[in-house]
């Protein structure tokens, strides 16, 4: 606990509500959309938002949240870089009586008012299911994983393997860090090593789009299923590139989180888990 003399005296005017948003990284369209959702909804409700960007560094994120608390925010919206690493920050906020809502990823410890996220395990299962529908059981699949250790990676992988381990043949998996360039390079190499692959499941659309380039220039016929449903991916699906994407609604996650925060600040109860619906996008 910080010493008493150092604690901020929150006797400023409580009329204007101010919330802090700590984002894991803004170098990714998904989180940019999520942030935009928060900003739009906050504007609608007349709430001020202060945004900090951890650039995928857990330590920076705890510094960032310290700085947000310093600015006297009434509530914290946190999109953790890592679920374990964020725990202390949440506990600090708890001790100061600042309510916390996490977005997209959970916090392992500490009291969180609500988690607003897609059900990533379910999303992984949806992807596996879709591939089975398209190619039948036993199809040979390559899995492109997200940033190692990220909850999205773990959960999507978990969901995917829940089904794929029994009904599909996962011939290779490699992380490509949610990054399009890496998706391209990793895929090029994996294709060479696994010429008989029939499908790819990528933990997000950026990697899926990279993989797609690799597949197209190899002239092979492989279906690609992504995750996120971002603008580019949907365009590609409609143009006959990507086969499908498990669409999240990042902006909605942002909106729901602001609503939850407003509720909490007004003293209302909120659901512990607020799920933003997932939707499988394919070419219609």
């Amino acid at each position, binding site marked *: 606990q910080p010493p008493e003399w150092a604690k901020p005296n929150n006797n400023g005017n409580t009329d204007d509500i101010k919330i802090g948003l700590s984002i894991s990284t*803004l170098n*990714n369209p998904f*989180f*940019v959309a999520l942030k935009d959702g928060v900003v739009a909804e906050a504007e609608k409700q007349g709430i001020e938002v202060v945004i900090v960007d951890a650039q995928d560094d857990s330590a920076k994120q705890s510094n960032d949240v310290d700085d947000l608390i310093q600015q006297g925010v009434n509530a914290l919206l946190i999109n953790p870089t890592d679920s374990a690493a964020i725990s202390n920050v949440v506990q600090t906020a708890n001790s100061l009586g600042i309510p916390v809502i996490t977005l997209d990823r959970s916090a392992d410890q500490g009291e969180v008012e609500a988690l607003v996220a897609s059900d990533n395990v379910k999303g992984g299962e949806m992807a596996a299911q879709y591939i089975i529908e398209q190619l039948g059981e036993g199809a040979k699949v390559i899995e492109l994983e997200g940033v190692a250790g990220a909850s999205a990676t773990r959960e999507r992988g978990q969901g995917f393997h829940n089904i794929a381990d029994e009904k599909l043949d996962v011939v290779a998996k*490699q992380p490509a860090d949610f990054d399009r360039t890496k998706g391209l390079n*990793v895929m*090029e190499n994996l294709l060479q090593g696994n010429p008989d692959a029939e499908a790819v499941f990528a933990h997000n659309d*950026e990697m899926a789009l990279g993989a797609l380039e690799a597949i197209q220039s190899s002239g092979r016929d492989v279906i690609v299923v992504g995750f996120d449903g971002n603008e580019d991916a949907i365009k590609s699906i409609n143009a006959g590139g990507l086969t499908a994407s498990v669409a999240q609604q990042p902006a909605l996650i942002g909106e729901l989180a602001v609503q939850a925060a407003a509720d909490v600040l007004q003293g209302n109860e909120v659901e512990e888990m607020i799920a933003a619906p997932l939707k499988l996008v394919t070419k219609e």
Partner: protein
Amino acid sequence: MTSVKETSNKKGLQLSQLAGKLGPLLGLILLIVIVTIMNPGFLEPLNILNLLRQVSINALLAFGMTFVILTGGIDLSVGSILALSSAIVANLMLSGLDPILAIIVGVLLGGIMGMMNGLMITKGKMAPFIATLASMTIFRGLTLVYTNGNPITGLGDSMAFQLFGRGYFLGIPVPAITMMITFAILWVILHKTSFGRKTYAIGGNEKAALVSGIKVDRVKIMIYSLAGMMAALAGAILTSRLNSAQPTAGESYELDAIAAVVLGGTSLTGGRGLIVGTLIGALIIGVLNNGLNLLGVSSFYQMVVKGVVIVIAVLIDRKKSA
């Protein structure tokens, strides 16, 4: 000195020079043999073509880096220049500029960014490491500001632009052709012109170069501009390959480029090295990446292997020259 000594000296010299040139090449061949034995698929034509295309971006960055390192400098900003110029090129294309023209503008802009490095280093007397560390941060920040963190997409389907990163010409990937042409031009500049001589002279003994009337500052500024242009060229290829400009493109590419230069036998203290070594160094890294993937080595172990290969290569190089 007796003539006997001289001859033995000279022979030793030539042999070690030869070894210096051949060392990286032998390493590359060894690597290819190992990978092929473990997975014969490696030598399939398509894989080789892929490999060449994959290598081209790092090779271009490393070519520019070779000049920089030969002068005793370093350029950490190439990855950021790649990203910023790529974003600008993409935006120019979106606003209707002809893709080839956009690429040319992009390369020139890359040159200007490189020139800023050069100015900080010469006129500002900043250490190259710290100057380019700063500009790496600045250019990356500007890229993110410029793109708002989002990729720039919808670049249309100009045939020329698509070919630039993805196409084939006479059965060879266009990026590989770009790489080879660039290599040839830079080889001539480095080894057959007085500009190349000056590059070596500055790295070998900067004070003496100055006293000998070489316009050290000007040569350096031109070299950092060249490195910037190479980065922008690599960026244009990447933009075409990804059919979009990525704000995070090129992150930590400088390290691979530096590794290629060093694996190619160029000394980080400047004055010694060959651009053909850099080409081989880039190929070594490419074969390693590609080969380890083919062999199904996990990406975690890949990092370890890459680091160990660098250490071994450099140690062998040191042994030889000792």
